[in-house]
């Protein structure tokens, strides 16, 4: 467990762990202004703005991490930064959503001969059956 004058810091993103270790002080760009977290800080939960998370280790080193936003959870002995890997903003997300919608619509525009649910199932069943036969043939021949 961490010593009394340090705090355990975990910085994780959806794509991987970024930092894990003890610190004497952590600075983060909270949504209402930058905050500094010392050991035995009161429990806090905040969203983060894009910016820099600064971690001071007991050895006197300082680590910098860029986060595209996210959230920070502070407990007396532990700080967890849930970092976004991408820059997030309502309009950027909105544009991405529109693009995803558009791609779907475009794909549907040129629908090659519509088939029914039942047809799709039979076609799939046939393909799986063929694969099974192939596997069996392979066994017999091998």
């Amino acid at each position, binding site marked *: 467990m961490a010593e009394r004058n340090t705090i355990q810091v*975990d910085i994780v993103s959806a794509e991987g762990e970024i930092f894990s270790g003890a610190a004497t002080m952590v600075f983060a760009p909270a949504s209402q202004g930058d905050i500094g977290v010392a050991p035995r800080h009161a429990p806090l939960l905040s969203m983060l703005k894009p910016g820099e998370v600064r971690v001071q280790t007991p050895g006197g080193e300082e680590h910098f991490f860029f986060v595209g936003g996210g959230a920070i959870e502070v407990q007396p002995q532990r700080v967890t930064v849930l970092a*976004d890997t991408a820059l997030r903003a309502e309009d950027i997300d909105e544009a991405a*959503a529109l693009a995803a919608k558009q791609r*779907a619509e475009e794909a549907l525009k040129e629908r090659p001969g*519509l088939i029914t649910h039942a047809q799709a199932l039979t076609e799939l069943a046939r393909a799986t059956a063929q694969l099974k036969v192939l596997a069996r043939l392979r066994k017999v021949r091998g």
Partner: protein
Amino acid sequence: MPGTKEIRAKIASVKNTQKITRAMQMVATSKMRRAQEHLRAARPYADKMRAVIADLAEANPDYRSPYLQCRASVKSVGIIVISTDRGLAGALNANVFKETLLLIREWQGQGATVNLGVVGAKGLAFFRRLDTRIVANVSHLGDRPHVKDLIGAVKVLLDAYRDADIDRLFLVNAEFVNTMTQRPAVRQLLPLEPSATQAPREHWDYIYEPEAAQILDGLLIRYVESQVYRGVVENVAAEMAARMVAMKAATDNAGKLVEEMQLIYNKARQAAITKELAEIVGGASAL
């Protein structure tokens, strides 16, 4: 020598194919390992996220996030289907599609409409032939998918859930069990099922910045995104494993084919030599 030349050309062609399938097998093996690492790397985020969300939901029982609301009557469901962009991966995609079709039929049987969010080119090619609504699509994520490429497609379905356009959200992807086994898996993303295992722990309340409700919604959105991301990465691992196995089988088959043809070639060559000799001997005795 009738035939021998053709057989020789055929053998060379099969050998070339074999080289390709062997190379694909090795590439798939190394990509599978990398995908597995990515899958492992995604775990801590999801775990921490789930813990924070559980704490938050517990500390604020009076705020009902739209993403946690369970609507009793289901008029419409959303399904995110994850498929590969490329083929030659055995029955991987076919199995996922079959599972999805069963799910679609189940909900349509209950009178609900279905909205699909499709990830991957193969899924789009398959489902656009169906008369099911596709509301979002994202393809060509490559072997190293990123969360930012998924945000848009997931948002379409999240917004639909928030606005009560859909009442359930599911995720279907190929689950990586081990190198030899991949099976389709269906998971419910929304509403979030309350974690029953969550033991009541010592209680404190947070200082919130800005508001608890806003944070909770922000976290829930990210949580769902990370779950979809996880599904995509797992699908890549499964795809590579399936391709590895398929390509190994293809390489073995090619080897067998070459052996068989070599035998035929040798026989044909021997027959030609014998025939030539017989002709010479016949010609000599005629003199």
